[in-house]
């Protein structure tokens, strides 16, 4: 699936400059990079939340894009109602919630969930829909080890079964090793590495990537 080259400029400062890319359905593409490198900006452009410079559309066709923001927002209703929002199917909603181990919170107000629980609620809510592209912005950032494992399982399974393009922004090297097929590496808004995750991790071409990976290796 083709994605156009896009740039984003805020007040004269270009914070993102991405070339045209090709994403393959059924594969998970991780996006890594330091804070402020432009990961969220890219995710938002792909999701259509933010307009790229020149109003360039990221996709040529009318691909449906599902997107989980970095900060999950619980709507003022129960956890189940939040999950059961885009397509009404209670049984499937509860099933998804069970997969992420939040089914016991079904009747609780979503606003009262913890950070990790809110993120799992948001993930279940998003996975209720059918999308050609899924963009997840650091979904496991506030989750514990068990929830992270459940989430990674769900992401892998959903990607293979639905054959959708899965773009996963993450800070975790281990997560990339566990789930990613491909990897994009951003540095100060520029794409400095891109290819199969294993190759990029084992033989990065740029000094900045090496340094970043060394840090994460600690």
């Amino acid at each position, binding site marked *: 699936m083709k994605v156009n080259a896009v740039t984003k400029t805020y007040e004269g400062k270009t914070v993102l400059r991405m070339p045209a890319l090709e994403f393959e359905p059924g594969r998970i593409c991780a996006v890594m990079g330091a804070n402020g490198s432009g990961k969220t900006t890219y995710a938002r452009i792909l999701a259509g*939340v933010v307009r790229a410079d020149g109003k360039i559309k990221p996709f040529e066709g009318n691909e449906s894009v599902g997107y989980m923001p970095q900060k999950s927002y619980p709507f003022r209703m129960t956890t189940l109602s939040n999950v059961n929002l885009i397509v009404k199917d209670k049984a499937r909603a509860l099933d998804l919630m069970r997969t992420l181990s939040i089914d016991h919170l079904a009747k609780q107000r979503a606003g009262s969930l913890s950070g990790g629980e809110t993120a799992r609620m948001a993930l279940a809510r998003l996975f209720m*829909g059918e999308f050609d592209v899924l963009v997840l912005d650091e979904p496991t950032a506030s989750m514990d080890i068990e929830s992270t494992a459940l989430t990674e399982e769900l992401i892998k399974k959903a990607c293979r079964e639905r054959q959708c393009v899965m773009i996963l922004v993450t800070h975790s090297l281990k997560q990339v090793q566990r789930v990613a097929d491909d990897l994009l590496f951003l540095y100060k808004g520029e794409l400095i590495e891109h290819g199969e995750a294993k190759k990029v991790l084992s033989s990065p071409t740029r000094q900045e990537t090496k340094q970043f990976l060394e840090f994460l290796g600690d």
Partner: protein
Amino acid sequence: MKTALQQALELIIGGSGELSNILLVTARVSLTSSLVSLIIGVPIGLLLGSKSFFGRRALVVISRTLMGMPPGVCGLLFYMMFSGVGPFGRYKLLFTVEIMILAQVVLIIPLVVSNMETYVSRISDQVRETARGLGLKGLRVYVLLANESVYQIFTTYLLAFARAVAEVGAVSMVGGAIAWKTNVMTTAIMLYTNRGSFTLGVALGLILMTISLAVNILVTLLQRRLSR
């Protein structure tokens, strides 16, 4: 003063034809005008607070300015438009309950709009980003925004009602404070005080203060819920 207070309390407890008529007219005017203002103002506030379009800022400034419009100016405007020689004179609405409601609606809509706009603009980015990410569009996003603002809508209604009940400038000008017809609590207080008969004035004042107290307690409780 003590006897006036005693008499006033007796009047409230015993009830009098005129007092209950004043209360009825007041309820009809204030409840209707605040409700109509809410129905018109909330969608405008939702739109202004959540969508960016050309002229949005200007509209927000206008709405905030109109919020401070003196009721007398609003009354004057309606008086001129609906008096015998005015453009709408033929509708013969001057000195009726209907025009009192109309004037108050115009007076209160900016309060509703500004209140909603301020609240919605704080939550709208996150709500819209989340809704967009879920593939939700158009009306469904506004339904979600309204659902997120339910307590704020209640609070805004109470403030609108409080303003309507306590307002005197507009209703006295376009209503004329005609006994048994367009006399509301605030205009009655003025009228009876001018005549030197304090009893009814004090009774009405007590009722007004009680309403105001109840409204403010409710608003405080709602805001406690909101901040959680």
